[in-house]
Every structure is written in C-alpha cells, then in structure tokens.
C-alpha cells in the first residue's frame, strides 16, 4: 500500500482536526464573558478611576501618594499592614493577606467538653500547617516568614459552633504548589482524622504467602466495621511521630506508642507474626501491612507506599488527633487574594491583628 492508497481510505490529519474543532466550538455558548467594568463598585471600594489616574498623572510622586494612602487606610481601619518586600512598598501596594473564615457545627449529642476539645484539635491542626507552608512562591522567590503566615484564631461559639479564621500571604494560599493552600486546608480541617490500626483475621484475609477467602482491602476501601481496632489514635504518642527516608516504595512511618499501649502492641505483634493489619483513616484503608519482623518495643514502624505529600497529611492527622465529634461546615468565606492597591475590600473586618492571632495560637 503506498501513500496515495492511504489517502484514499484514511482521513487526513487536517480533516480530523477540523472535525475536532467543530465539536469543540460547541463549548463556546457556555463560556462566560468577563464582567464589564463596574464604576460604582470601583468607586465604592476606594479603587476609583481618579485615584488610579493620579498615579499615572504624577508618576514620579506615585509611590509617595500610594504609601500615604496606605498609611491613611491603616490608621482608619486600625490595622497593621504587612508588606512582603521592598518592591511592594515602592509600588505602594502590598501583597494582600488572604483571610479565610470557616464556621463548623458540631454534630450529634454533645458532651460538655466536646466544644473545647474540638477547638483544641482544630488549633493543633492549624498550628502545624503554618510552619509547613511554602517558603517560596511559584516562581521560586522566597516568601519571608513574616509574610508567610500571620496567624489564626479558633473561637468557640456555644452551644455547638466553632469558628476558625486563618490568614496567610496570597502567594501561599492561591499560587502554591505546596501541600497546604486554601483548598487543601479547607478540605482537611474539618475531617474527623481518626487513625487506627485494624487487625485483618488470617482466616479471612490470609497471611504471609497464603491467600484468604477475601482479598486484602485496597487503598480507599472502607474498612469492615466489625474488625477490631488494635491501636487507635489515642495509643499514639503525638510528640514522637516521624517519617523515615522515602524509598522507592514510599515513606516509612515511625510511630511511638504511649506507655500503656506499648506492651499490648508488643504482645499483638508476637502473636500475629505473618498476619496482616490495615492502617485506616476515617474508616478507609490507607495501607495494609504484613507483620513480618519484630519492631522496637513501644514503636509501630510501617513501611508504606505513601508519597511524601500524602505521608505529611497522615502525620498531620496523627499529630493533631481526631475530632471528638463530626463537624459540618456551615459557612466559609475568604478575602481577596490579588495584588491590588490597598482599599477597604483588601482589609476585611475579620482580619486578625498580629497580637491577637499570636495569643490565639498560644492559648489554644
């Protein structure tokens, strides 16, 4: 078959591309148009045309004018403004801090301590997140510590609500490819975070080299609720949880056990050599592991297939503990994340003064 014969029977690439273009063009009606410039909204927000023009018209004085405007706004709102670097100061702009506020409602029948315990867990979760936030932006430019995170606050609202507010440099929350950003914080904060080690009976799931009547549960599978928990989060010593060096298989975890749990675990290991256990988070399997070698007394050492980021999330849950009761997110808000000249909309009322946020992180 020569080329001519092929062209007789097979469509040319251009013909296929034209067909794909025709199909893709069907998406056009669903594409939104950028909203028109809203002069009233701009004027109301303090970002009016006149102000911007003044920057253009008096280009040489623009930095001074805008810095002065910043000071006025700062005084007016009683806020301390932050700047991430000299460039921002010279331009009279500051990288706006993103402030997110999430309100959670505690679900179920509550005991007297549930509200306090929930607030404590949420505080521990947030206090671990900020040191892990990105230290550079997407372009690799360093983000100063003072700008990276500016604190958080966890407020109890009896009888059954907890409000979490946190703020961070917009580059961290919106542009970061790092683990923690607005989306992932929001997704993970209200999760129960119940970590447990569940024994998998050899008669059902097999043991080393011998298949059981059921296959081993895979990552993401719900764990059989009838199976006994060998260890729960309460058995782990949150201050001594470490990740090992990642190998081809994943990141190993070294979890120290509390004094009261060490011996029962040691006994379990001795009596179940060659059997499987499952590591589960919130009732879903993360890993199944074969008990194959003695571990140091008081430690649970797991070789996992977890990638670095995933291991970090798991350790985050382990260290901060499980929520005492389920939470439902009842509201969420966040503020501007873009580098606009400072104005009322960039300094929201929920913004936390540094002193308040520091005391909040310490007191909770």
């Amino acid at each position, binding site marked *: 078959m020569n080329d001519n014969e092929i062209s007789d029977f097979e469509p040319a690439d251009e013909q296929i591309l034209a067909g794909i273009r025709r199909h893709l063009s069907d998406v056009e009606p669903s594409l939104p148009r950028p909203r028109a*410039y809203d002069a009233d909204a701009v004027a109301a927000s303090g970002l009016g045309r006149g102000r911007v023009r003044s920057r253009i018209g008096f280009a040489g004085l623009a930095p001074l004018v805008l810095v002065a405007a910043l000071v006025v706004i700062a005084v007016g709102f009683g806020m301390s403004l932050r700047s991430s670097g000299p460039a921002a100061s010279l331009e009279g702009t500051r990288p706006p801090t993103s402030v997110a506020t999430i309100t959670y409602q505690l679900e179920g029948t509550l005991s007297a301590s549930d509200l306090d315990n929930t607030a404590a867990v949420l505080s521990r979760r947030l206090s671990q997140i900020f040191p892990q936030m990105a230290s550079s932006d997407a372009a690799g430019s360093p983000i100063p510590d003072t700008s990276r995170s500016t604190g958080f606050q966890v407020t109890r609202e009896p009888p059954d609500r907890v409000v979490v507010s946190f703020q961070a440099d917009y580059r961290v929350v919106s542009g970061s490819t790092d683990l923690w950003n607005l989306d992932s914080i929001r997704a993970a904060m209200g999760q129960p975070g119940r970590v447990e080690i569940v024994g998998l009976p050899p008669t059902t799931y097999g043991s080393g080299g011998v298949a059981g009547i059921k296959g081993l549960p895979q990552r993401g599978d719900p764990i059989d609720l009838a199976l006994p928990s060998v260890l729960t989060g309460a058995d782990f010593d949150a201050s001594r949880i470490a990740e090992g060096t990642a190998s081809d298989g994943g990141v190993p975890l070294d979890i120290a056990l509390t004094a009261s749990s060490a011996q029962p675990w040691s006994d379990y290991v001795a009596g179940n050599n060659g059997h499987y256990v499952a590591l589960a988070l919130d009732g879903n399997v993360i890993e199944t592991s074969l008990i194959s070698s003695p571990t140091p007394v008081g430690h649970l050492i797991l070789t996992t297939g977890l990638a670095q980021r995933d291991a970090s999330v798991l350790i985050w849950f382990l260290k901060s503990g499980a929520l005492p009761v389920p939470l439902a997110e009842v509201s969420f808000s966040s503020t501007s994340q873009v580098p606009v000249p400072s104005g009322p909309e960039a300094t929201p009322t929920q913004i936390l003064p540094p002193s308040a946020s520091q005391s909040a992180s310490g007191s909770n």
Partner: protein
Amino acid sequence: MMAVVTVDRGSEELLELVEDVDEAGGFGALYRQRYRDVYRYALLMLRSAEDAEDVTADAFQRAYAAWDSGHGPAGQALPWLLLITRRLVIDKTRRRRLLSWLPLASLHPSHEPSAQADTDRTEFWLWFERFARELPTRQREVLILCYQRDLDDDAIGEILGLSASGVRSLVGRACATLRRNPEIWR
C-alpha cells in the same frame, strides 16, 4: 497603564474590576480580549466550571503581578497567559489527586465539581467525555490548544514545553488515535 482585577472567592463568584486607563490598551484590554480563551482552556482541561473559574482568576492575578512588575510577555501574550494557566491546571489536578485518594470523604460540597452536574447533561460534555476517554491527556491537550487558531506550532510548543516538530508529532499521534475512532471527530 493600569488594570485592577479583584477576586472575591468568599462569595464563590468572580468579581472583576478591570480598568483600562491607557487608551492604547493594557492589561485590561488583554484581560477582556483573552478571558474566554484562558477560561476555555481551563474548563476543557479540568472539566469543572468552578475550578475553571478559580484557575482563570488565579491566572490573571499572576499575569497581572508579572505585568505590573515589568515581567510581561516577551512575545505574544496568549501563549504566556496559557502557560501560566497550564501550571495552575497541573497544580489543581495534583491537588485533586491528593485529596481524592486520602479518605477525606466529606469534602465540602463547594469543592466538588458542582457545575459538572449541569455540564454533564449537555451534549457537548457527553461528546467530550468520549473524546477524553480515547486520548491521553497530552494528546487531548494539544488538540485543545490547536483549536485556538491564533496559536501556531511554536506557540503551542512554548506552552507544552515542546519544539514545533514535537507538537506536530503529538498532533499526528492524536490524529492516529482518532482515526480509529471516527465517531469522535465526524
């Protein structure tokens, strides 16, 4: 020349305040001219209107930051914008993977592709699902970029990190795949 883009994520809605001070154009003009192109690319790559909206907002925010600090596009603006958008799409996809395997079962509803339910019902999205099933991501992406007629092979290569011949080769492979599935392109 000055443009202001404000994103209000709290209300889950994009509020753009774009002011084009310079009569000759500027970031505001670029924004108005290319918003749909950026959004279309994000929408087709992510298949979620909500995520596409977020990514589009972030892309223009980053573009504005670069533009304002004198690091605008060296050549054509569209490849530059789409390159920024592509990085955000990759990031978004990576986050989705992370959050989807971790049993974070009760992700807030707003994180779910709520608009997807609507879009799925349309004929276009039914077709697009078939299109996406048959083609690997990279081949699909190159065809989506080819749809943008004002992008030549060099520009597409700039976005994908390929040479122009690499782009042609990728298009060729995509067409070979589609040749076996004529119902997708006819």
